[in-house]
């Protein structure tokens, strides 16, 4: 396979070692994934929160509305 | 009434908690002293020289001066809003010793504005190329020194809280008072870099802290009573 051939690393260990710069390379990629995750996951999480909060609010509003109409 | 009277401890905790809540609500109070410290420290390479070697020589001084200025600028928050909205009068009319209430305010203020500066100091130390050996020393000395700055600054704020234009007069009052701490701090760093042992220097700084903790709130309390007059 040509794809396999042009892989720059002959073993997995070598891949992880990154020519002695494992820390540098991997920490950058780790940071990238972290940021990627944060900036996608947090907006999604927040969306859930907003919707939950909004549901709670509308329930409260309805309750107070009925309270007022009944009193 | 007697059964419901608050103890001094309760009033202390209530005040501490209130101030922390206020700080939490205006997150800026936490972030800004810290950002100010970072930015002022950045001004030095720009204004003086980006050359690492020359930076390294002045780094300790720059860190201390920046921390001092950050603490100074943050001080304005300590009693200002309370004075303006009248909460300070309520504080003075509390039946508890003012010493503890002022101390509570000082503590919460330092936690919010001083501690973050101390925590970030090693990073700035690195960027300014401070010799490696000095990181921990700068951290420890700032940890002892910044509360002293806060406590001294608190006296200055108390004296000037009723003035319209406070920022500068506060600085003019407080900066000279802070010089001994500045000297002790930078000396400690330099001397330990030169091989002296930390102990003696730290003892001196510790003594300053203890002194400030016992005396400064008293002075602040007295000054506050005068200021609201």
């Amino acid at each position, binding site marked *: 396979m040509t794809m396999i051939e042009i*892989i*720059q690393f002959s073993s997995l260990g070598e891949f992880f070692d990154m020519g*002695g710069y494992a820390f540098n390379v991997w920490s*950058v990629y780790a940071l990238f994934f972290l*940021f990627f995750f944060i900036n996608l996951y947090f*907006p*999604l999480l927040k969306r859930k929160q907003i919707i939950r909060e909004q*549901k709670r609010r509308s329930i409260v509003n309805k309750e107070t509305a009925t309270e007022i109409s009944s009193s | 009434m007697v059964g419901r009277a608050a103890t001094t401890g309760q009033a202390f905790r209530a005040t501490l908690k209130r101030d922390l809540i206020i700080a939490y609500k205006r997150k800026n109070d936490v972030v800004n002293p810290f*950002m100010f410290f970072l930015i002022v420290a950045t001004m030095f390479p720009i204004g003086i020289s*980006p050359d690492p070697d020359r930076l390294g020589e002045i780094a300790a001084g720059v860190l201390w001066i920046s921390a001092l200025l950050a603490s100074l600028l943050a001080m304005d928050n300590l009693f200002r809003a309370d004075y303006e909205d009248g909460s300070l009068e309520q504080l003075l009319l509390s039946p508890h010793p003012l010493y503890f209430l002022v101390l509570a305010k000082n503590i919460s203020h330092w936690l919010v504005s001083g501690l973050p500066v101390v925590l970030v100091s090693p990073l700035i130390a690195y960027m300014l190329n401070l010799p490696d050996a000095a990181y921990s020393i700068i951290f420890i000395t700032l940890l002892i020194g910044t509360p002293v700055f806060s406590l001294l600054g608190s006296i200055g704020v108390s004296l000037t809280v009723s003035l319209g234009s406070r920022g500068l007069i506060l600085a003019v009052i407080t900066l000279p008072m802070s010089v001994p701490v500045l000297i002790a701090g930078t000396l400690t760093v330099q001397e330990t870099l030169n091989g002296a042992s930390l102990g003696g220097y730290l003892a001196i700084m510790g003594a300053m802290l203890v002194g400030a903790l016992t005396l400064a709130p008293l002075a602040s309390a007295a000054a506050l009573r005068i200021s609201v007059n």
Partner: protein
Amino acid sequence: MWLWFSKLGSPKWFYELSGRWLPWLVIPMALLLVVGIVWALLFVPPDYQQGETIRIMYIHVPFASISLAFFPLMAVAGTITLVWKMKLADMVAKVAAPLGAWFTALALMSGSIWGSDIWGTWWIWDGRLTSMLLQFFLLIGVISLRSALEDSDAAAKACAVLSIVGCINVFVIKYSVEWWNTLHQPASSFSLSDEAPNPPEVWVPLVIMIIAIYLFFAVSLILSTRNEILERERRAQWVQDLVEAQ
């Protein structure tokens, strides 16, 4: 034109449209990201000077280049807020600031990790680095101004003014800092742009990563903007219907 403009300004319209766009952004983003990262990590030949650390470039350069887009973006949004009072523009400006801070931070961090190997130090007061750092500070300034001003209408306008002033200033800073630096520091190995004669197997994955990360930027910005819309329009009927439907 005017009609289109006011329609675009309508948060509801944007919410629905962006809902339809999202998959067409997320799917290419995911694909390009996978291709780009695998290529960058496995197939790019090590640089003759930088060795394996060249792989950091595929993160650093996209983030660094997008970071520079934030102030112009916020300034444009700010102008729209001030002139046409368009709510949507302010929502974008609001969510752009923290996102910009994240991107700038990653550019700074990846650059400094890269530098720790190549320059032997994590930080030097080089022109580009310093101007990037100052841009980061300005972004924090915008964010803290926003959070400090309690009234959201005033906050919107104040941040708009600051973004516009800041945008001019970011250019001035960039220019002056580079000027300052080149006069002081010989433009030696610190030059960032000497990889022009690189072969395609180096720059093609870079282009892929740049596009992928641009898409990531768009997706994240849109997601946050949609949240902002839901929050600010929460009393509108369509939002309430939408919430009910969830």
